[in-house]
């Protein structure tokens, strides 16, 4: 088999293959990239950013953490206010009833406490509230970082790409010779 026959066979196969994928030569995006700012804004809601990026298992975990975190803040804020009211009430009562002695007041959570001890419990409650705020900040920052990472990951696979196609033609001259040509564009 001479080389012309081989070339002709390759040409025919190539044309047959590419003829089914004829597309105009163009510059297209395979898909729209995900907006980082929209994803981060959605992530203010529990699991919102992860649903936006399609990571539902992350959404479930962070939704749980965020709801628990907000509830912890609500709980410890109330607890802080409550311990503060007990402290102020005990201080006022001690001064009114017997300022020369450190009285022991019944703590609703059990046992007895002096005014100073109620003050310590008030401080502890403030620490719990502060910690709950820090925990929420940590959860939100972690969630945003995960969202940012997922957006980057998605957008990497959505970079603009070139799509090419092949064009082939047959011509015959006055001497009866057939000419075949192929143009490949990318």
């Amino acid at each position, binding site marked *: 088999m001479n080389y012309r026959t081989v070339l002709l066979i390759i040409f025919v196969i190539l044309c047959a293959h590419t003829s089914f994928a004829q597309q105009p030569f163009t510059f297209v995006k395979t898909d729209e990239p995900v907006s980082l700012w929209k994803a981060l804004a959605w992530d203010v809601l529990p699991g919102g950013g992860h649903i936006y990026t399609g990571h539902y298992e992350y959404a479930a975990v962070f939704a749980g953490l965020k709801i628990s975190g907000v509830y912890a803040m609500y709980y410890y804020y109330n607890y802080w206010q*409550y311990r503060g009211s007990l402290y*102020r*009430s005990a201080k006022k009562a001690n001064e009114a009833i017997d300022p020369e002695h450190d009285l022991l007041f019944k703590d609703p959570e059990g046992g007895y406490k002096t005014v100073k001890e109620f003050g310590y419990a008030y401080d502890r409650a403030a620490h719990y509230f502060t910690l709950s705020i820090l925990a929420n900040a940590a959860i939100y920052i972690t969630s945003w970082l995960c969202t940012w990472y997922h957006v980057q990951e998605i957008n990497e696979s959505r970079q603009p790409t070139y799509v090419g196609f092949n064009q082939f033609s047959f011509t015959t001259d006055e001497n009866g010779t057939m000419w075949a040509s192929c143009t490949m564009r990318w």
Partner: protein
Amino acid sequence: MSLNNKTIVLLLAIVLATGCLHEPVDEEYFDDLSRVKGGQKPTPPVDLSMTINNYIITLSFYTDKIDNGQLLTYDPDTGSNENLYYLVYISATDPAQFSDPKLYYDIKYYVGYVAETDFEEGVDPKVVTIQISSSYHGPVYVWMTSHDGGRESDHSEVVNGDIP
């Protein structure tokens, strides 16, 4: 769908209720003596006197004296003195010079205590002795209080002596 809504409302109610477990109390909350350990404060021992002999202080006091049919030393919550402890304080400086009346009850001057039940019932005066270090020379001021397990009384009169 309505079941889901009910479930959500129930969960929210539980969340709000647990948050409200710690509703702040009003300022008068502890003005109620039932919330103060010991309730009303007892009265102190009376007629305190002291003798000093060879670095031993002998303190005598009365707790069963009656005035108008009422014990002078008693716990108003029980009406008796059976549950009382008697605390002894001692100082080398005159407590009248204390900058803060709270110092009368400061642990710095506290020596120890005896219980009403340590003595024979109804017998007065009651006597306790305190051994002083032989290296000490100078004035001694002693006073007492009663304690009902929760609250301490005002202090008794202060007696003083001198160790040569």
